[in-house]
């Protein structure tokens, strides 16, 4: 049995409400309405327990976290405990004065998403008119308030050619950091996989561009590259290993090992309030299901990389192998690895044959129910 360590990081999805409708959103396809969200007191209580448990960084996310009117209060509570706070925002519809108030409350860092490096792309992907300009304004306000800035660029077929423009954008906004994050195919992105999957030649060119920029911009801009799983040789150590040093909390207080974990049907999850965070971290069967290496099958079980990539992503194993305990098919050692290349090809063929008014199933409450009706 692997030694149980305290968690370092926590992702708090404060709400599923969001003005944007990005088709690769990492929220579950069944979105929770506002009336299911934890109240201020409960979040504050949860954050105190997280700090006691050893959490050093909290990522405040959503949906759009600034839709929570109590965000300043929550940030202030975390800052009072010395927890490093990172706001993950779409940067759209943030009232004047709020960025400044968040900085005042002790916010450490702001991560701002851009769906495109160009206004038309941002609007197409987010399905929100004027979103690009609003994001630029949020970036300016954040810098003026003295907040360090990360630009987050989720990459897929419809914006992969804009990678050089994303780098220029991050530089022009005074960002310290840029995340070139190839979309991970879980949740909404899995629904839209065929429409989002880039082709191999473009992915390879992207990797070269990022590599060159990293070299050229050393000491000027940090570029983190989230590589595309479907084109990989080895899988990512998803969440740094299942329930190893991080977890996430859904808007209703459900505590999960990662944001897509609900896609694994045999797991059941516990809610904060029914049990303490410490109890859930230690005892929850969902957390212990894939913790450490004891659960692994061949080829992971005897692999020399088993404590490097921890079997990869459980949700991807579920989605592609149909077994959450299988080796992530992104791994070249997986017997199902060839399926990844096939899915890439199928996506190209499917996208070429499609002529829909909307290129995506946009993320909105009830979208999946409507889609199911259409299919039936």
């Amino acid at each position, binding site marked *: 049995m692997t030694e149980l360590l305290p968690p370092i990081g926590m992702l708090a999805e404060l709400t599923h409400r969001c003005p944007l409708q990005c088709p690769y959103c990492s929220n579950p396809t069944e979105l929770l309405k506002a009336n299911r969200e934890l109240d201020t007191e409960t979040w504050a209580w949860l954050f105190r327990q997280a700090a006691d448990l050893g959490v*050093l960084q909290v990522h405040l996310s959503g949906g759009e976290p600034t839709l929570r009117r109590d965000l300043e209060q929550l940030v202030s509570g975390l800052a009072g405990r010395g927890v490093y706070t*990172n706001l993950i925002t779409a940067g759209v519809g943030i009232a004047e004065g709020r960025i400044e108030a968040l900085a005042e409350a002790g916010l*450490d860092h702001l991560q701002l998403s851009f769906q495109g490096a160009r206004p038309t792309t941002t609007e197409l992907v987010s399905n929100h008119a004027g979103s690009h*300009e609003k994001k630029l304004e949020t970036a300016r306000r954040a810098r003026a308030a003295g907040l*360090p800035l990360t630009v987050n660029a989720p990459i897929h077929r419809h914006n992969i050619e804009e990678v050089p423009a994303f780098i220029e954008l991050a530089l022009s906004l005074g960002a310290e950091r840029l995340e070139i994050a190839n979309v991970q195919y879980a949740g909404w992105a899995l629904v839209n996989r065929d429409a989002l999957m880039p082709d191999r030649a473009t992915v390879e060119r992207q990797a070269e561009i990022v590599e060159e920029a990293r070299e050229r911009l050393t*000491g000027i801009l940090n570029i983190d590259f989230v590589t595309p799983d479907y084109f990989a040789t080895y899988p990512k150590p998803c969440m740094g290993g299942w329930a190893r040093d991080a977890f996430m909390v859904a808007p209703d207080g459900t505590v999960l090992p990662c944001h897509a974990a609900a896609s694994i049907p045999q797991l059941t999850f516990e809610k904060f309030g029914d049990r303490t965070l410490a109890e859930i971290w230690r005892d929850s069967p969902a957390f212990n299901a894939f913790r450490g290496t004891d659960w692994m099958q061949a080829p992971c079980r005897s692999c020399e990389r088993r404590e490097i990539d921890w079997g990869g992503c459980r949700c991807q194993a579920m989605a592609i192998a149909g077994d959450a305990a299988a080796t992530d098919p992104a791994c070249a050692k997986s017997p199902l690895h060839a399926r990844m290349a096939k899915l890439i090809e199928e996506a190209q063929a499917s996208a070429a044959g499609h002529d829909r008014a909307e290129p995506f199933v946009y993320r909105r409450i009830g979208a999946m129910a409507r889609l199911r009706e259409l299919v039936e």
Partner: protein
Amino acid sequence: MTVAFTPPPSPATLPRARALVSPHSIPALPRHVRIQYDPVRQADAVLAPEKVFWPNDISLDILRRCDGSATVSQIVAGLAAEYDAPEADVAADVETFLQEWSDKLLVKL
């Protein structure tokens, strides 16, 4: 809706060239990086965007002296005295360390 005009970030906050460490550099931790004692693990952590570092005692000693007023040569002299080590050796280690941390934007020079 009227959008308030805010000036672009000043050149001081927007490094256009990689900073290179010299004995005259005055290093400091940027706002988004802080050293914090963690009572749960009983160790000092360096907290930065999306990252937590656990530097060893010597690295922590260097970082604590990056206070925005001491020069690299003053930091080196202080450490050489504390560790009773030749200044030239300490200087080489400190400069390598600070260049690496500056390249990751974890230290301002």
